[in-house]
């Protein structure tokens, strides 16, 4: 297996992009990545997208997006793992370059979510749970994470204020990110005073509905010098699944697939949690960030809420989490999220994250998950 580097990144402003189609949102970011890398060709591409079918009535995205990218008749593969689609697309591209099958691979992610009503978006997102034995009973995604929050509060004493602290931190980080959908600071009082969606989760505990895309260019690490973009090496990758239904899990207050994916990534990278300088985690809900930081070994089991409240996970803290603003503030176009997390890692390791920059960042981790943690993918990157 060959070492693989990221040599180009592309991402544009996320939000409610009424004037843009799925294909144009994707191509805009993909071209930015190609330009950043200075690549004169693409050999193959993978695109993470959860539900082109339900959000815009369009499937067959591999061919559609390869066509519109204008790079000729290259192989184009659409990857779907619910909200982990982008992270799994990255792993697919990584393996294609590592295997020697291709040299220059574009890894993208895209979701166009605002062409449908809120009800239709809720339905589309609910297909990431078990349709027959969860959604049938009227449970929503906020409802499933709310039940994880109740279990976590019961077992570890996690508080509402600790969950709110996650939202406050991520919105502060997002306020430093001009590409974020909601680059506005918030307060614990505002989070706790916002409308309840599924007890104990308020609307400001939840990530938003977003249109957006992101793209990366991958190549063999020993060819990285041929490109103009400052390279970052991908040194670890891990992927694990869990039961599709939350109720089938032995422990409702942990994300075991994230733990397994992280163990594989740490092992491949030869790193441990103490080596990680910053991490982007999948904070689709505030409780998800708390549970993810625990599963990754970055904080002690049951202490994720306390760590957030104490500022340990803030920029300048012991282990900065979601310097980009996370899904919470930056937005969550589901298929693009895993790719955008990798872009924040690259920007930090390049030293180009501006006001969000983590000092002396050398090793970064990204964690992306689908459903209630039924798919979990973790990557570790290192500055070259």
């Amino acid at each position, binding site marked *: 297996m060959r070492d693989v580097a990221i040599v180009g990144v592309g991402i544009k402003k996320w939000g409610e992009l009424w004037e843009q189609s799925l294909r144009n949102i994707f191509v805009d970011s993909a071209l930015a990545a190609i330009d950043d890398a200075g690549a004169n060709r693409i050999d193959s591409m993978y695109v993470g997208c959860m539900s082109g079918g339900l959000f815009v009535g369009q499937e067959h995205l591999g061919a559609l997006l390869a066509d519109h990218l204008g790079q000729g008749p290259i192989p184009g593969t659409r990857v779907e793992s619910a909200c982990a689609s982008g992270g799994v697309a990255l792993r697919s591209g990584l393996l294609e370059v590592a295997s020697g099958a291709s040299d220059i691979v574009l890894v993208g992610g895209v979701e166009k979510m605002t062409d449908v009503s809120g*009800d239709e978006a*809720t*339905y589309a997102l*609910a297909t990431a749970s*078990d349709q*027959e*034995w*969860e*959604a*049938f*009973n*009227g*449970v*929503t995604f*906020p*409802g499933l994470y*709310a*039940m*994880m929050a*109740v*279990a976590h509060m*019961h077992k570890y004493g996690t508080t509402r204020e600790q969950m709110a602290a996650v939202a406050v931190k991520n919105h502060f980080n997002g306020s430093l990110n001009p590409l974020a959908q909601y680059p506005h600071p918030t307060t614990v009082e505002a989070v706790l005073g916002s*409308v*309840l*969606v*599924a*007890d*104990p*989760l308020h609307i400001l505990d939840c990530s938003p509905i977003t249109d957006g895309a992101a793209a990366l260019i991958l190549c063999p690490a020993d060819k990285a010098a041929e490109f103009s973009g400052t390279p970052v090496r991908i040194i670890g990758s891990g992927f694990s699944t869990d039961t599709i*239904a*939350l*109720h*089938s899990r032995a422990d*409702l207050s942990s994300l075991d697939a994230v733990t397994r994916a992280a163990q594989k990534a740490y092992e491949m990278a030869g790193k441990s949690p103490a080596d990680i300088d910053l991490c982007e985690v999948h904070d689709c809900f505030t409780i998800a960030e708390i549970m993810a930081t625990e599963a990754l070994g970055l904080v002690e089991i049951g202490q994720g809420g306390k760590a957030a409240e104490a500022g340990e996970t803030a920029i300048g803290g012991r282990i900065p989490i979601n310097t980009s603003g996370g899904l919470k503030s930056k937005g969550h176009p589901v298929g693009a999220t895993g790719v955008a997390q990798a872009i924040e890692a690259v920007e930090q390791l390049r030293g180009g994250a501006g006001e969000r920059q983590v000092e002396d960042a050398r090793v970064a981790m990204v964690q992306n998950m689908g459903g209630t943690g039924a798919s979990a993918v973790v990557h570790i990157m290192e500055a070259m």
Partner: protein
Amino acid sequence: MSSARAWREYPQRYRYEAAVCDQCAKWFFPPRLVCDACGCREFTTKAMRRTGKVLTYTVIRVPPAPFKDQAPYVVAIVQMDDGPRLNVQVTDFVDGQLKIGLPVSLEFRKIYEEGEAGIINYGYKAVPV
């Protein structure tokens, strides 16, 4: 949903039919084709006891479209006494009664209607015992 799907789920939604592994005796509700504990592919169909207890719960205040007229309502994960765990609505409780560990029993109830001319979907909800 299609009438075929509604019909093929009746054995579980109406009669609590579970599959019990012939080799390790693990219960599966709904049934599966292979046991995830021992790999056995042979099962015996048995009716699951309706009793269990609440492991966690939430109040759904922003519901999916078919449940609009029911919100707010409670959804829980219930540990059944025979081993399986379920996602299920909880109903017929009084203020202050709902908590982790609450003993419940499944009852046959209407779950939701698909518009004025669609299927009326029935199934089980949990009530305190």
